[in-house]
């Protein structure tokens, strides 16, 4: 069998000219060389077969010099093939096909050199698309590029969101945020969750505050007694067991503030409010919901709804108040929200500031309600540095008892 060595289509470029070549040219050259290499490897295989054939012929008794000549010819062509392969291989290596050196270099226009994997497979699909000018890559590469672009954008526009991969980096991000907040607002002390909660306990001494991470709250909510519980004594025992298990976690000072995602405010016999923080460990509330203290079950969470009309109305109102605090009182959003929530301790006793009654028939929902609305706008939250700190008055109203024009709520 005859083999005609194909001429190399382009001279091997020198070092200077290579750097002057645009990436598509580099890609084209590399592809060429790869196919050369493949042909050379095929030639070498055939040559090896021929050598074996020559040896076999030589082992036959009646041969003279023919096998020797054959062998010598094959040997010469084999060496040539191997030499060519070595040089092509060197060129490929230099252009970054065998290793990833070109990939690591900048200014490759996003194109990827075909990679020869250790097992001989050539990842070459990208090539054709690239040479055609299409911004192509293999499916894996495309996915990788997309994900990288997405995380870059996310990091740019939502710096407070965790990366999720590295817990260390997310902690440092949230710490950085907290420090920046304190630079912007030196007047208040409400930088960390512990500060907020200890200040709250001073202002509203009747409230019981508990903090949880998200999973712990779900467990606790499931254990809360539903109102149809038959034996209150058993429930009390369960609750005390649960609180024993959480010894040391309930006090404000001891809580590990990087994990706290749920704040529970309990006014015994009046209501239970659940505030969710996002991200966990920050002072950014993102949802709040009110429930009867007797309600229990997995629906009791910051985005759940109570079965009782009165608490549903308050939860809806609280969503608006929360948006107001986040928008206009961003630095003290959590503290303002918690303080506002505490104003509901008078839910069943404080009369409406407009009509002077406690119960009133709500026109929209046709149920009797106590004043479920509390003023949240234009309330200043005093800092602890004030000489006379006072609980701001959140006035109580029935939903139908105020008008936006005369009394801004």
């Amino acid at each position, binding site marked *: 069998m005859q083999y005609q060595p194909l001429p190399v289509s382009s001279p091997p470029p020198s070092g200077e000219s290579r750097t002057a070549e645009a990436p598509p040219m580099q890609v084209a050259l590399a592809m060429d060389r790869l196919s050369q290499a493949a042909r050379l490897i095929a030639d070498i295989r055939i040559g090896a077969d021929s050598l074996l054939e020559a040896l076999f012929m030589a082992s036959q008794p009646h041969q003279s010099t023919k096998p020797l000549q054959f062998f010598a010819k094959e040997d010469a062509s084999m060496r040539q093939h191997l030499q060519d392969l070595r040089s092509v291989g060197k060129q490929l290596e230099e252009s970054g096909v065998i290793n990833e050196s070109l990939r690591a270099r900048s200014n490759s226009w996003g194109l990827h050199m075909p990679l020869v994997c250790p097992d001989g497979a050539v990842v070459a699909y990208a090539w054709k698309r690239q040479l055609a000018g299409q911004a192509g890559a293999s499916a894996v590469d495309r996915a990788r590029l997309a994900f990288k672009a997405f995380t870059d954008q996310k990091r740019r526009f939502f710096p407070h969101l965790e990366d999720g991969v590295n817990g260390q980096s997310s902690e440092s991000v949230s710490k950085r945020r907290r420090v920046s907040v304190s630079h912007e607002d030196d007047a208040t002390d409400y930088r960390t969750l512990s500060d907020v909660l200890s200040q709250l306990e001073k202002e509203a001494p009747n409230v019981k505050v508990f903090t949880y991470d998200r999973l712990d709250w779900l467990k606790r909510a499931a254990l809360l007694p539903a*109102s*149809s*519980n*038959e034996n*209150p004594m058993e429930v009390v025992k369960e609750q005390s067991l649960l609180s024993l298990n959480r010894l040391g976690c309930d006090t404000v000072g001891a809580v590990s503030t990087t994990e706290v995602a749920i704040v529970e405010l309990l006014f015994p*016999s*009046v209501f239970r409010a659940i505030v969710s923080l996002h991200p966990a460990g920050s002072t950014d509330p993102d949802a709040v919901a009110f429930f*009867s*203290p*007797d309600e229990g079950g997995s629906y009791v969470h910051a985005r759940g709804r*109570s*079965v*009782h*009309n*009165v*608490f549903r109305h308050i939860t809806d109102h609280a969503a608006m108040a929360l948006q107001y605090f986040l928008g206009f009182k961003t630095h003290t959003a959590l503290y303002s929200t918690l303080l506002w929530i505490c104003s509901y301790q008078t839910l*069943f*006793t404080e009369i409406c500031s407009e009509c002077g*009654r*406690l*119960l009133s*028939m709500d026109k929209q*929902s*046709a*149920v*009797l*309600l*106590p004043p479920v609305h509390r003023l949240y706008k234009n309330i200043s939250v005093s800092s602890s540095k004030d000489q006379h700190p006072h609980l701001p008055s959140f006035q109580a109203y029935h939903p139908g008892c105020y008008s936006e024009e005369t009394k801004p709520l």
Partner: protein
Amino acid sequence: MPLKWVFYWKPNPGTTVNSQILAEVSQCAEAINGIKDGRWKVNLTYYKPIFRDQAAVSEIPRDFIGMSLPERPNKFYFTLKNHRIVVEADLSIQNIMEKLQSYRSRVTLVFEGVQYKLGDFQLRVGKVVPSHQETLRGIVMEVEYLPISSMEKSRQIMDDFTGIWQETLAKRSLPGQFVCTEPNFSEFGLADNYTPQHTAVQYATVMADLIASAQSVTSVRN
């Protein structure tokens, strides 16, 4: 559990209770946006001990009541009002008493009627009749406020509701009104948190008041 107040109808002097009043009261419940939510029933029995020994007759209390409540279908509640005792027992206690031949029922009354849902309130209006008879002995009303279990915390709300209810009733010029005499729960050893035992005590009180007012009517007649 949610707290409730139990009222009974006190007719004006010289009048008696009748089923027309019951119909008017039901209409009132619907007038304040009450939605019919089903029926309810309470059985209340006066027990009399069965004696082997005649000597002990004078010491036995006459107000030993047992009742079943719809919110705890597998329990039975006893009250001894004058001794300030309320007890919760299993429903099978009635069988036991029968087998032991210790007590038998003297008279049984049935409270039954319709319940209405008014937002977070639940209203039950019902007649009081002796069992297996149709003569109306009284009208009873339960007002329950579902979100709260504390008697103290709910006092103002319940007062307010009672006021609204009485106002609505007053427009119909009925010969009487609903009355709630709040028993002293702490004497019975009951706490602020509402329980079925509180209901049992309220019913025992209501029965005592009904009997007292019936007796005063008969004494007036006589």
